[in-house]
């Protein structure tokens, strides 16, 4: 079970992605839990996740999240703006899985 956490300002726009990513995972036959949270909840939610992906409009939060992520021991990155705009669930899922693999 891969646990993927998404964060943006209010958890609204990333929640659009959640469904698309779940569909992509199902098509691939990968078991995942994906959830989206508002930016202030991300640090506490990280403990439950395998990876954190940040909405590109909040990319300035990466610096703040990095020490927390290191402490919890999970990778994090910013979602590519273009795939974010296309709400491309598969591409973001792949990004998440690659980060977990590393």
């Amino acid at each position, binding site marked *: 079970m891969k646990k993927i956490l998404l964060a943006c300002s209010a958890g609204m726009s990333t929640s659009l992605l959640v469904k698309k990513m779940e569909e992509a995972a199902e098509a691939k036959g990968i078991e995942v839990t994906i959830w989206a949270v508002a930016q202030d909840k991300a640090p506490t939610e990280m403990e439950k996740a395998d990876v954190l992906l940040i909405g590109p409009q909040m990319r*300035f939060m990466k610096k703040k999240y990095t020490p927390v992520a290191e402490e919890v021991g999970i990778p994090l990155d910013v979602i590519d*703006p273009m795939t974010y*705009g296309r709400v491309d669930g598969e591409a973001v899922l792949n990004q998440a899985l690659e980060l977990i693999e590393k």
Partner: protein
Amino acid sequence: MNKFMEFLENILLPIADKLNNNRYLTALRDGFMVALPFIIFGSIFVVLANLPFLDRLIGEEAFATYQNALAPASESTLSLMGLFVIVGIGYKLTQRYGLEAIYGGTVAIASFLILTPQVLEGVAGAIPAVSLGAEGMFLGIVTAFVSAELYRFFTQKNWTIKMPAGVPDQVSKSFSALIPVALTLSIFLVLRIVFSFTPFDTIQNFIYTLIQEPLTALGSGLPATIIAVLLIQVFWFFGLHGQIIINSVFDPIWYALNNENLQAFQAGQEIPNVVTKQFIDTFLVGMGGTGMTLAVIILILIIGRSRQMKELGKLGAPASIFNVNEPIIFGLPIVMNPLSLIPWILAPVVVTIITYFAMSTGIVPKPAGIIVPWTTPPLLSGFLATGNAWQGAVLQAFNLVVVMIIWWPFLKIIDKSYYENEKKSSN
């Protein structure tokens, strides 16, 4: 052009980082988040208490009884918004320092109450509600910052009462807070006494007259509003969340203005301010998201010929009705796209000016001080924000058309280039 964009982004990113990660601005934003459920609860009851035509339907007397019955809902929440923000700020700031956060919240509220006037029209023991709402907002925010810092300072000095081992944790915790709380509150008491010897009488009066009034007067003006709107648009153009950066600075002003309007609306007086929290949230953001992109989506659905545009329209439309528009911003894309720069910057400024004049001339009622959540669909939000006035919805519809006209030539060019690319690649 690319070099220039990169140069600008290198300036904006650190600003966004600084503003968003500043501990006081973060606490301020989180503090408003704590207050939000209470603010919205109160707003719902202001809307219900002022349903249109109800007075004619059930008679004026029954309507007055009905309004009186509902009044405590908003008067204990929305009208006293300052209290909840103060608790939130004190709590969040103390939490950030890794200390017992509930004491940070309570010490903030007690400090604020110590500074608050406790006489109303000569009657002692009465706290004027307005001091806990609109007029106390700025003092409350400053007090919350200072009291939480003092609490931290005294706690970290370790001047606490140590309990012997074996005393239950909760008991020793409540005693360990005693000295920091007592010292912090004493400082605020001294402050109150000092100010009672000045012509301002209370520090609340001092902050209100010298800081809050001038700042809100400035913030309620058209120039400052246009600057705020421009900054939000520029940040978003670089794909950075504009509101989360700008609002943390402007929210205290916009909320204070908002509550002044609420007081006037509930008292049946003339509403003073055009620019409030709702001016921004309903008439600018609440039109499909930042940059009023519902207009862009409608336009895409009407004139889009390229497959890319059509798909974007379908993908973006449902979320855009609830003012979530990241698919459009990153998908069109608007971000870093020279072709979208002009309408992106221009349209919100034009709409700001139109809305400002429509309200200041009285064609459309000013915002009634009701906080409508930013995810409320347009037209409905305009109706609610203006205190159940249909003119608010009409103004939003008018503005949507204006935005469509501004975007039309630019969207046409973008669509055409996509269309031709698609034709080329399919050949």
